[in-house]
């Protein structure tokens, strides 16, 4: 149980000042313009944290903590993490609150943001006092006190980083999210789940047969996927932790599940909605199902293959792949009117659409010369932007829950692995490497820890 007890008494005053000045603006603060493709990385200083009560444990937690924050913030691609060797003062010695900092010592070395941390460890319990300063304004802009157990350190720091990103972008970030993907380590394709940064990968499905296409429910508690447990591609809906699950097995295909954005906040799986491709009526069409697989209605009705649905964040539209025009292309269906419009026109093979959680863009894999690459296309009629090139096969793009990054699979280093990049194609790097090959990544929503 992680308990946030609110603001440190001293910080309350500061926070009140900050929030009191622009109470309504809190959610609209955009220091980082997330729509600007030419991001200048913000120089941020993250000096070692200060043990507020000196003991060996606090020292260890302090040192590790600053590095973890640096790593988490670096992951977003927004920041340039400054070298600690360049720092002119040490908050670890002088103190971590605004009054003990000389902001000029930070602005002169080019740091625009500064993170400080004060740590108290008593036995198994941990208290972390974390602040973000705007050095040029000489102002604290985020200040939180978290208490928990020693083992909660990373979770606490993830929460703090979410606050930092929220302050800077107006978005909640992705530090409480996970990535599901397919790995062949056991000799079969199985679903695995790792933290957003590739840590703690663990096998989720144990089908011992082909298992593909994981899809997260909007609350992050359920996964739907396709598996050949009975030598037919059937859908399985499984709770992330509890041993609850359902099989959806209409005759023929039961593939490419996509959960509809939540219309009710009911935790019951039958109240959730799932779009998926079925072929029991002869043609491959996309249907709207309950979380347990009962058909609510057929959504598409065009001859040929209609697969890989992805919902707009408001749940009113559905992008999907159809070969109705002769080759696989991304189309957009307006669910209420039933009107469908073709979205992609460049290239002969465009599949695997993923609708950005911000609503304005769709990422997909487009094939030229037998190689897939990731493209991003706006819904404004502008041509697509190619995000990957000359780096093997790049497939299965999926957006982070705040739309700031894209996870995908690539064969650029040989075997297929999971990679991430920013929403503008920068900072491409591998997330993890496990035995076998890794494909089909799906980024989860932020999952509130229990």
């Amino acid at each position: 149980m992680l308990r946030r007890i609110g603001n440190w008494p001293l910080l309350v005053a500061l926070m009140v000042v900050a929030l009191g000045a622009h109470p309504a603006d809190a959610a609209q603060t955009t220091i980082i313009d997330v729509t600007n493709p030419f991001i200048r990385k913000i120089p941020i200083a993250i000096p070692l944290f200060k043990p507020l009560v000196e003991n060996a444990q606090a020292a260890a937690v302090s040192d590790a903590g600053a590095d973890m924050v640096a790593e988490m913030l670096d992951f977003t691609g927004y920041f340039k993490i400054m070298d600690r060797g360049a720092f002119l003062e040490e908050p670890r010695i002088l103190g971590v609150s605004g009054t003990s900092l000389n902001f000029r010592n930070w602005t002169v070395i080019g740091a625009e943001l500064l993170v400080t941390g004060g740590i108290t460890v008593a036995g198994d319990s941990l208290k972390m006092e974390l602040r973000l300063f705007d050095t040029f304004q000489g102002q604290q802009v985020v200040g939180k006190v978290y208490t928990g157990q020693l083992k909660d350190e990373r979770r606490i720091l993830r929460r703090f980083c979410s606050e930092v990103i929220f302050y800077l972008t107006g978005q909640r970030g992705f530090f409480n999210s996970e990535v599901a993907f397919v790995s062949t380590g056991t000799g079969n394709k199985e679903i695995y789940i790792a933290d957003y940064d590739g840590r703690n990968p663990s096998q989720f499905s144990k089908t011992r047969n082909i298992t593909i296409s994981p899809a997260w429910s909007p609350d992050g508690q359920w996964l739907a996927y396709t598996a050949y447990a009975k030598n037919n591609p059937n859908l399985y809906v499984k709770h992330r932790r509890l041993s609850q699950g359902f099989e959806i097995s209409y005759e023929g295909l039961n593939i490419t599940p996509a959960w509809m954005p939540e219309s009710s906040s009911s935790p019951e799986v039958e109240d959730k909605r799932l779009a998926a491709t079925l072929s029991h009526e002869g043609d491959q069409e996309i249907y709207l199902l309950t979380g347990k697989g009962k058909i609510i209605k057929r959504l598409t009705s065009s001859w040929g293959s209609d697969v890989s649905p992805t919902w707009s964040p408001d749940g009113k539209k559905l992008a999907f792949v159809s070969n109705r025009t002769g080759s696989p292309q991304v189309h957009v269906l307006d669910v209420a009117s039933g009107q469908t419009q073709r979205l992609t026109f460049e290239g002969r093979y465009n599949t695997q659409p993923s609708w950005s959680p911000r609503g304005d863009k769709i990422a997909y894999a487009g094939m030229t010369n037998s190689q897939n690459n990731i493209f991003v296309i706006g819904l404004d009629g502008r041509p697509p932007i190619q995000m990957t090139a000359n780096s093997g096969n790049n497939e299965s793009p999926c957006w982070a829950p705040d739309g700031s990054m894209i996870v995908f699979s690539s064969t650029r280093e040989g075997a297929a692995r999971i990679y991430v990049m920013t929403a503008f194609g920068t900072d491409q790097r591998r997330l993890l490497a496990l035995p076998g090959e890794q494909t089909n990544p799906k980024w989860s929503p932020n999952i509130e820890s229990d």
Partner: protein
Amino acid sequence: MKRKAWMCLALLVIVPAMLLTVSCSKQTAVDADTATKVEPPKAPAAPAVDPKAEAEKRAKEMALNEFLHENVHFDFDSAALSAMAQQVLQRKAAWLTSNPSATVTIEGHCDERGTNEYNLALGERRAASAKAFLADLGIAAGRMKTVSYGEERPLDPASTEEAWAKNRRAQFKLN
């Protein structure tokens, strides 16, 4: 149902008989080790070979082998049946006609180049094309089940034109 009961009865007799045979021969082996003089075991009496029946049996095996291993091939991103594919399917129909009790699964497969979700759909369309063609030739639809494996079960994992052509197929399995 009746047939199943028969099988069970037959198994009830055969299985213990087999077990007995195994334990007996083991016993003999042990005896042979300790015996000073070993009599060579009698060669089993050769079954009477009927050359005609033998040839027929061989031809049947070959026909089955061809049925299971000659695949129907497709162009990239296509489930259309080429002239060659239709010839292969004519032979499948002939085999199915001369083996009226056989029921089959037609598997649809793709090469690795597309993406796996769309290929699941394409594989199903390939299997369905083959099934529809055979049904037109008079093979009862109820004898043919279809399943798509998309790009998940390549015959040749190489990334070459040759391997891709081999992998784009409808493949027949006996149920």
